[in-house]
């Protein structure tokens, strides 16, 4: 009996209704469409994350640069203050320079008069 059943079962052929392929095709198209639709939010999310990361890194870089500038200006101020301690020397030098310039000017005026 088993062998007979096996042999006869293998030759069973049933024709599906004509609309069944259309149903399968439509469902395949829907799946394809869904896949595309599902991809857009993922891409949008990836783009937003990249944007946020970019913004954060730009802000971070800007902050770092400002911190570096302020550190440099503090150093510069310190240097200036160091010089300020010796103001009298610089003042004397500048006075000497001015005197020298005036002397030169006078000498050249005398040469002209002569």
């Amino acid at each position, binding site marked *: *009996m*088993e062998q*007979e*059943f*096996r042999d*006869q*079962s*293998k*030759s*069973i*052929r*049933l*024709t*599906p*209704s004509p609309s*069944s*392929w259309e*149903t*399968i*095709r439509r*469902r*395949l198209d829907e*799946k*394809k469409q869904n896949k595309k639709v599902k991809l857009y939010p993922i891409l949008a999310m990836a783009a937003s994350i990249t944007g946020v990361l970019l913004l954060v890194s730009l802000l971070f870089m800007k902050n770092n640069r400002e911190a570096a500038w302020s550190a440099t200006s503090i150093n510069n101020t310190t240097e200036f203050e160091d010089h300020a301690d010796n103001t009298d020397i610089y003042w004397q030098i500048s006075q000497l320079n001015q005197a020298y310039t005036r002397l030169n000017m006078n000498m050249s005026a005398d040469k002209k008069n002569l």
Partner: protein
Amino acid sequence: MHLKYKNIIGSLVLNTEQLLEHCLAGDRKAQQTLYEKYSPVLLGICRRYISQLQDAEDVLMDGFLKIFLNLNQFDHRGSFEGWMKRIMINEALMWLRKRKLLQIELDEKVLPLEEVQDNRHWELTESDIIPVLDQLPEGYRTVFNLYVIEEYKHREIAELMGISINTSKSQLILAKKRMKQLLEQKKQSQND
């Protein structure tokens, strides 16, 4: 020649391997060719498990959808037809399980049964198979299909159906017993 007609003629002469490549690429014409080639055999399988043709056709459609969507998982080691048949059998079992039609009554699980050997020739034809199967309870029918026709082992049937090996064996014995009664009745009615 117009591309559409070229595709149609091309798909008619493609062998299975080429057809699969086209199907994998999402070529609907190739998928239709594949469907038209194998759907009668596969619907026959679904119908052996499911008593209503419309339900069997729903299972066939779900199965084909699964075939097309998972075609890249076919490893080309065994036969493609065998791979498709396994998908259809699993789909049919899933359909039965969802509707709780595979639940086997406790009194049918006991195994005090001895199988009686019967070497009679029943002179069955393919048109006899489905009407006889339709008269069996779902549990008997499924185990009979899986063991006798698909040639699965009791261990595999037990795993697929979520039952014990002994239950699978007892269901088979009961199925065969019932089957013989039905065939005898049929033969008797033919003689009368």
